[in-house]
């Protein structure tokens, strides 16, 4: 029987939205799936060598559980994003959730194919040297060539 296949389109570059693609990709690979993740628009931030700029903001994120209710006027103050990111990272660590870096490394180790959208790289004038080395740069048509023949295809 041929291996099952999964394709994920990762379009968000915040800490909270970075987890689902990496968790699902690494787990599917562990289950024997052939997996490709296509990073486009803000998702491309997740392919940077340095992931420290991946943050979470409580602003316009009303579903985010907060220790104390926080008015929007307070959420917009300088430093709130860094603080929320630090607190979220502490929480993830305390509960034994892997760091993004660790999950991404596990994906690469399990031969999950990480693909960057070439158009986004050009659009935002990104420097490819800022991204990890073992990725491919392709367009939508190339990715759809794989995605069109998968068992699971997700847009995150």
């Amino acid at each position, binding site marked *: 029987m041929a291996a099952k296949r999964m394709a994920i389109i990762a379009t968000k570059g915040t800490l909270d939205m970075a987890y689902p693609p990496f968790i699902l990709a690494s*787990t599917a690979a*562990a*289950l024997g799936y052939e997996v490709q993740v296509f990073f486009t628009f803000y998702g491309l931030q997740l392919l940077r060598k340095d992931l420290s700029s991946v943050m979470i903001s409580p602003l316009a994120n009303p579903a985010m559980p907060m220790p104390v209710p926080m008015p929007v006027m307070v959420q917009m103050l300088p430093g709130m994003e860094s603080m929320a990111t630090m607190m979220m990272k502490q929480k993830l660590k305390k509960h*034994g959730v*892997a760091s993004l870096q660790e999950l991404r490394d596990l994906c690469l180790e*399990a031969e999950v194919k990480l693909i960057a959208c070439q158009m986004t790289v050009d659009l935002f004038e990104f420097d490819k040297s800022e991204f990890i080395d073992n990725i491919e740069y392709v367009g939508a048509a190339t990715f759809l060539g794989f995605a069109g023949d998968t068992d699971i295809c997700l847009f995150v």
Partner: protein
Amino acid sequence: MNFDKELNARGMSCPLPILKTKKALADMATGQVLKMISTDSGSIKDMQAFADQTGNTLLSTVEENKEYVFYMQKK
């Protein structure tokens, strides 16, 4: 129960126990048994799902003092 290798996944959350199990099994021979200890209650269903989808055999699942002990036989 006899086992050939032990994996300590205490304190790890989903999906780490499964990913570490997969890695541990990769270095083992067919028929060998892995003992995995987890504190993640989600592992109970996930380890069964992992076994069902990969063809490895989950020989037993024991819950003891909020720890879950799994014996998985490699395919």
